[in-house]
């Protein structure tokens, strides 16, 4: 559905720069979800994603002129700012990759099991997905971004390329390498318990 001219991102941004609270609120509601999910999936922590989203919108409030409509969409710009903040966060904090159940990371394992399962099956599935989550968080940032946007957020290659300001071909190759790395990591993670069991 086409967006009304008055509700276009650039128009809303210019109105909010002049103090229109309604325009800013609309912008916030339109973009916070995807940005929050991106930050959450990249950092693996709800608190970090909150901090990132807050900083991104603070930047929009304080420096609205940083966005240049001739260089792309506001969505792309916001992804760019979010990405920078995520990078800073990742540089700042040491890696924290608990493989067990996480209660404060914004993920809800309960949603995984829609069909009837035995406790053992559920535990295995739960463990495997925890491993996948951990493996995603361990990926190098550029591959993780591609996986998060294309696989988790289900963006098209073009949308992901726009969000990351890179060519579509780069997204394809990062995805390809990201998947290969994920497979290798998961294989490694699954090998360890197998070897431990074999040793008994």
């Amino acid at each position, binding site marked *: 559905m086409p967006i009304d001219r008055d509700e276009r991102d650039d128009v809303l941004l210019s109105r*909010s720069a002049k*103090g229109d*609270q309604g325009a*800013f*609120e609309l912008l*916030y509601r339109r973009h*916070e*979800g995807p*940005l*929050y*999910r991106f930050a*959450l*999936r990249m950092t693996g922590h709800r608190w970090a*994603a*909150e901090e990132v*989203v*807050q900083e991104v*919108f*603070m930047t929009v*409030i*304080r420096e609205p002129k940083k966005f240049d409509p001739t260089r792309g969409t506001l969505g792309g710009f916001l992804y760019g700012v979010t990405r920078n903040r995520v990078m800073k966060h990742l540089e700042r904090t040491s890696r924290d990759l608990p493989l067990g159940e996480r209660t404060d990371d*914004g*993920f*809800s*394992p309960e*949603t*995984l099991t829609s069909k009837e399962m035995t406790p053992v099956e559920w535990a295995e599935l739960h463990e*495997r*997905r925890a491993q*996948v*989550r951990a493996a*995603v968080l361990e990926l190098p940032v550029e591959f993780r971004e591609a*996986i998060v946007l*294309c*696989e*988790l*957020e*289900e963006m098209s290659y073009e949308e992901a390329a726009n969000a990351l300001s890179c060519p579509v*071909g780069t997204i*394809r*190759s990062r*995805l*390809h390498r990201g*998947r290969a790395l*994920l*497979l290798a990591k*998961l*294989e490694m993670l699954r090998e360890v318990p197998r070897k431990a069991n074999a040793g008994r």
Partner: protein
Amino acid sequence: MQDDKEITGRVPMTCEEFVLACPEVRSAPADGALRQAVLEHARQCPPCAALQASLQTLQDDLRYLGLETRQAEAPARVQMRVMQEFRNRHRTEKRRRFVWIGAWGLAAAATVVATVSWTTWRHEKGLSAWPGGLAQAVAMSPANAPTVKSAANGLVIEDTLVASSASGDFTLLPGSTPLPMEDATVIRVQMQRGALGALGFTVNEERASDVIQVDLLVGDDGLPQAVRLPGTSQ
């Protein structure tokens, strides 16, 4: 990476092509020929079939991982903080703009007051410099003034060249120092009122073209030291 069409155009598919095409098939299931080629290769190549199965599992897991956080949104407290910042920012800006405008308004008003005061002061000072007032001096009719003849050494009023010992009525030109009267000569000349401006006096510009009589107190160096409007001194 190879283009999909390029891959589909070659049958049978190689393992390298399979590795590239396998995820693409899941991403773009509408491409029937490519899908067919991938499935065909997987049937014939057990390692590639295993890879396909692993990729399938991985993509399922990733999809579930995506589903876990599909509805995730920033908590309301983030919006609250951001909106608070927005309000603070714009309230502060509004206040700052008000203060800025006020400050500039005050500065402008102060400048106007200072200019008016200075002009008035200069005007009053100018009037007091002329005994009897500038208005009287200006009111003098040039018709009553003696004629001026041109001489080789300047404008000289022949029949009214006066040597006055009374220097009290003269107003020193800006930058001049008082001279002993015995070294000075008084010369009466006619000039346009505007010329007084060149000597450093304030002149009513509306009447700058009026011709008036002026006594110049000339030093022994030939330069005027002071002026007097003769009609007002006598």
